[in-house]
């Protein structure tokens, strides 16, 4: 027993080092005093100060947060609707196809998603003048597209675990299907919806490839700004920025996981 737990501990440690060593290096170097990224010059918060004085970065960050917020919210609405349809309508023609389609963006290479969206936007502009040019709105549309797939999958899996007699009970007590959804179904899948929102928010914040395809001049999101800065040489400022992004994403993902666990508990209790 003891030897096995030693083996397990070693494996786990190695695995986590492999995963997190690069990020730890990045976080540590963001507190580097030296201007040279590769040389350690002692602890300092200097580059965080520089970061907040850089208007370009602050603007990009605000834009990214705005896009992430709007796309996550829209994706949650559309994704919940799609997930609801997928789990509630038992048999309809094309259900398998719809189920396949909804999860396609999950496995599609981002380059292809980005390229196809770009082509669509250009074609639409040519055909009926909207969207005129590319910018914030096209990024939001693109992000909603791939985020809603995640939301749909999460919501669908939760709904399929939900006891359907709860909905029948509500109908039996006089709730019409429309009010039934808001009074019973939605509250019960709320944790899944929240976790879908948080995941969407993080993914939108992370996205570089798709945004690069569909954004226009003057609409650079934070990952785009970081990437262009890094191409000119790694600056300690970018390290500081990256550390902050890791923090935001970590909070988002932890929140999503917490919500999912809450959902699991809720379902457990309902069963018991």
């Amino acid at each position, binding site marked *: 027993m003891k030897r096995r737990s030693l083996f397990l501990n070693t494996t786990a440690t190695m695995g986590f080092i492999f995963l997190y060593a690069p990020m730890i290096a990045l976080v540590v170097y963001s507190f580097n005093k030296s201007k040279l990224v590769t040389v350690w010059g002692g602890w300092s918060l200097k580059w965080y100060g520089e970061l907040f004085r850089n208007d370009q970065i602050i603007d990009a960050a605000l834009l990214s947060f705005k896009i992430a917020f709007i796309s996550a919210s829209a994706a949650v609405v559309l994704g919940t609707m799609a997930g609801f349809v997928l789990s509630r309508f038992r048999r309809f023609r094309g259900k398998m196809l719809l189920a396949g389609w909804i999860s396609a963006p999950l496995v599609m290479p981002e380059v292809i998603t980005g390229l196809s969206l770009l082509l669509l936007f250009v074609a639409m502009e040519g055909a009926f003048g909207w969207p005129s040019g590319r910018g914030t709105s096209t990024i939001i549309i693109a992000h909603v597209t791939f985020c809603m797939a995640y939301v749909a999958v999460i919501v669908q899996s939760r709904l399929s675990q939900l*006891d359907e*007699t709860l909905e029948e*009970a*509500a*109908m*039996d*007590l006089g709730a019409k299907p429309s009010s039934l959804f808001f009074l019973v179904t939605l509250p019960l899948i709320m944790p899944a919806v929240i976790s879908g929102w948080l995941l969407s928010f993080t993914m939108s914040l992370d996205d570089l490839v798709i945004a690069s395809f569909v954004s226009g001049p003057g609409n650079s999101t934070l990952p785009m700004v970081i990437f262009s800065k890094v191409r000119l040489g790694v600056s300690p400022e970018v390290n500081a920025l990256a550390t902050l992004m890791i923090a935001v994403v970590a909070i988002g993902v932890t929140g999503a996981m917490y919500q999912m666990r809450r959902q699991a508990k*809720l379902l457990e*209790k*309902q069963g018991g």
Partner: protein
Amino acid sequence: MTSTLTIEPQSEIVAAASVKTSKMPLWKQEGAEPFLRIENITKKFGEFTAVDNISLDIYKNELFCLLGGSGSGKSTLLRMLAGFESPTSGRIIIDGVDMAGIQPWKRPVNMMFQSYALFPHLSVEENVAFGLKREGLDRSEVKQRVAKMLDMVQLGHLGKRKPNQLSGGQRQRVALARSLVKRPKLLLLDEPLGALDKKLREETQFELINIQEELGVTFVVVTHDQEEAMTLASRIGVMNHGVIVQTAEPHDVYEYPNSRFVAEFIGSVNLFEGRVVEDLPDSVKIDSKDAGKILHVYHGISCAPNQKVHVALRPEKTHISKEKPEQQENCIKGVIEETAYMGSLSVYRVRLASGMEVRVTQPNTTRELGARLTWNDEVYLYWDIDSSVVLTS
């Protein structure tokens, strides 16, 4: 509990109560108007026929039990009454209104689900208030009725709790309160006591009967538990393969089953196969190879001579003894193969010369072990001529 109850319409309740005591039950009265009429209902799922051309009348204030095994179609029938399934053919008429095309949320029917289906995100009070709020009643009336109903099921003090903070029995009472608070004309109960342990079941059974009598609501209960049906029901409908095999009062279902299926499904029974040899005015003589002799049954049945029939004999109506009894009729010899002591009674399995096994139960009237019968004892089994029943199907 009774004294606090002032649920309307009160006059109706009083009337109902007096009907119960003074007159014979409605289903025995000629020309009585049924409250729920099921007419030739059939439900098919694809090729499978779940409910096969059932017709049934249920009267006001009845507590009707649909009893059957799993897959007998009893739950499907109940779900059609609630409106969750629509019949393939046939009509359901509740209180004179044809239910065809009426959605579940518009029916004067409430259901108590087997899983209780309490909303886990709402408190006990909110669960019970759910149905009243959908009616658009004003807040004070909702509050008042919820409080009254919770008091009736003795949960007034737990109104703020969530369902997962309640015990099984408490949840069951919340589910009952929730389905009764809307004052439905018809209450459907799907295995209402299924999830409770034995002691709680027994208490709750009587509580259900009390509530039903107080409110004068018509109950239709679905159950697979024959004991539950026997205790609760005013009448029982025994279902098998989508058909109601027998509809009768509990006593009649047990003592006068109309078929082998009913006899075997309700309680346990010994069946002797045989042929009619003599059809007397009020009794029949049946030659049974299983019994190894001619059995005499006091029962006026219409049957052809030489017809193949079964004689059904309940284990508890069979006497067992080592000494040869005085009676010659309906007496067979056998050897005890197995005994089981169950506390209040003992069960014996007796092997007859024909190879048939007969089950006999005897109350343990004394505490002494010595007098008790045991393995390999040669015994005589005997019973009165009116203890057994002849079954033609």
